């Protein structure tokens, strides 16, 4: 061979994770997953037409359509991001093992944690870019429609002889229902929920033998996560059960390993026009990071001893 190749000492973990993440992102992009953006565009545009006729006054004109755009768009974002997170993560690991590409990667000086973290990061990168693109489209549609609604309301209010300060107040109120920081916070919350689901699917795929099993179990946990907090509260408040130490410990352990997706109901509040306080978003970020890190390390714990 020619000149000796310089190998940076053990490479760096971050570098290797990034190489695997970038590759996973490319792999998913080349699987044409971005085609769903066309479906999202149709949803975002179609949601413009869900304007129920209301004639109580200028303040009601167009309010429904703005809510409809946010509701349909955030709903579609949730659906796409969760499905993408679960299916992509569930697919990648078994595929690598089946095609034996995993052997060639692990036969290089690549720690198993780097491989797992890279795969997860690649999926999250794809989800992030997808959400950013969908967010851009939603914001653009909402911006245009909000301006149209404001113009309509102002025209109607002026015609009805509203005082200038009332018109200004109505205008400000309607603009607050348009694209704002809370809406961006809600999109970030959608991303956090997808991150939890991706890391959960990663954990399941480390011991599952099929993509189908991983997908089904992940979605099952997703649905359980939406009512586990209620179930826990009912259990703890149900007389003696709630007073026992065992019950409290069991409840705590359940909360630590099973994500409570009711925390993400703040997204629905944003759709209804409420503000998303920075503190709530920070709390949600911490919760999301906790579960993502917890599931990733649990995946590593299993994957580190896995034989191929």
């Amino acid at each position, binding site marked *: *061979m*020619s000149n*000796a*190749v*310089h*190998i*940076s*000492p*053990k*490479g*760096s973990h971050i*570098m*290797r994770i990034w*190489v*695997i993440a970038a*590759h996973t992102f*490319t*792999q998913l992009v*080349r*699987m044409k997953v971005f085609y769903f953006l066309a479906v999202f565009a149709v949803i975002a545009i179609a949601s413009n037409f869900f304007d129920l006729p209301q004639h109580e006054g200028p303040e009601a004109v167009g309010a429904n359509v703005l809510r409809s755009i946010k509701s349909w768009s955030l709903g579609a974002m949730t659906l796409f991001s969760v499905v993408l997170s679960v299916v992509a993560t569930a697919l990648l690991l078994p595929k690598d093992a089946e*095609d*034996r*590409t995993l*052997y*060639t*990667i*692990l*036969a*290089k*000086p*690549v*720690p198993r944690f780097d491989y797992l973290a890279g795969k997860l990061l690649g999926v999250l990168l794809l989800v992030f870019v997808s959400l950013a693109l969908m967010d851009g489209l939603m914001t653009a549609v909402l911006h245009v429609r909000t301006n149209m609604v404001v113009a309509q309301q102002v025209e109607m209010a002026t015609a009805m002889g509203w005082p200038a300060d009332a018109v200004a107040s109505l205008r400000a109120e309607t603009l607050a229902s348009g694209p704002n920081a809370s809406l961006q916070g809600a999109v970030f919350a959608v991303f956090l929920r997808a991150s939890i689901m991706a890391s959960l699917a990663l954990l399941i795929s480390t011991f599952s033998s099929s993509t189908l099993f991983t997908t089904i179990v992940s979605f099952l946990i997703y649905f359980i996560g939406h009512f586990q907090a209620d179930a826990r509260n009912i259990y703890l408040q149900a007389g003696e059960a709630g007073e026992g130490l065992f019950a409290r410990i069991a409840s705590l352990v359940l909360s630590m390993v099973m994500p409570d997706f009711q925390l993400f109901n703040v997204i629905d509040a944003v759709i209804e026009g409420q503000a998303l306080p920075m503190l709530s978003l920070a709390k949600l970020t911490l919760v999301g990071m906790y579960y993502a890190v917890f599931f990733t390390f649990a995946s590593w714990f299993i994957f580190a*001893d896995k*034989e*191929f």
Partner: protein
Amino acid sequence: MAESIAAVEIRNLVKEFKTSFRRKPLRAVDDVSIRIMPGEVYGLIGPNGSGKSTTMKALLGLVAPSAGQCSIFGRDSMKVDSRDEVGFLPENPYFYKHLSGAETLRFYGKLCGLGGRELERRVSELLALVDLEGARDRRLGGYSKGMLQRIGLAQALVQEPRLVILDEPTAGVDPLGSRQIRDLILKLRDQGITVFLCSHLLEQVQEVCDRVGIIFRGKMVREGKLEDLIAIEDQSEIVLQDASPELLNQIRALVESTPGASVVRTGKPRTTLERLFLREISEDEP
């Protein structure tokens, strides 16, 4: 080679797999020991399911030994740094179909800490080595089986490892592709790279290996230098060019007049079907 540390050291390796239906675990590798010195080409041969691939996987840390130890250049196989100087080509690899040949090598190179111009130089060098320069930017989904094996060999060599492990490197490849891979293995040997290969294609192993181990039902049944293993000690062979029938008769008479010696067989040496095939298709080439 002045190095005294073995490139591969497998000591009393035992690997058992738990089975769902049988209480007794399946012993895939049973007390196997192999020592390969730097620069050697070692062939592990045996029928399918004899434990060849499991031995290689244990050496690469892909499975954990039930007992015994494996090390590469003195480093424990279960540790990641033991893979710094190893290249591995698994049996029937598929690689990522969405990547081109050059992208595949770049990906594996980056995993090994290579980058920039140095990586680009290495990618071009390897594509030339495995004769895939023409398919550099073609996606692997369109590669033939032989091309996939060659790109697989190239990825194994990306960080210039001192040890290359090849699991059935010519499985499913046509004779021409098989010959190309064998030529590459011989090139590696000339460059002083240690090669550990396993195969059940005995002729291929015979052509390239210095030492051979025969594994059967998980146990090493024979091991040693190739010439020692295949030589028939009490027989000698003379191959003559343009010998007349008279000369052959004289030789036969001389041997028969010597006490204790006898002619076992005379005749014309035969080429192999593979050599004939390769010669014929190379003559037909424009």
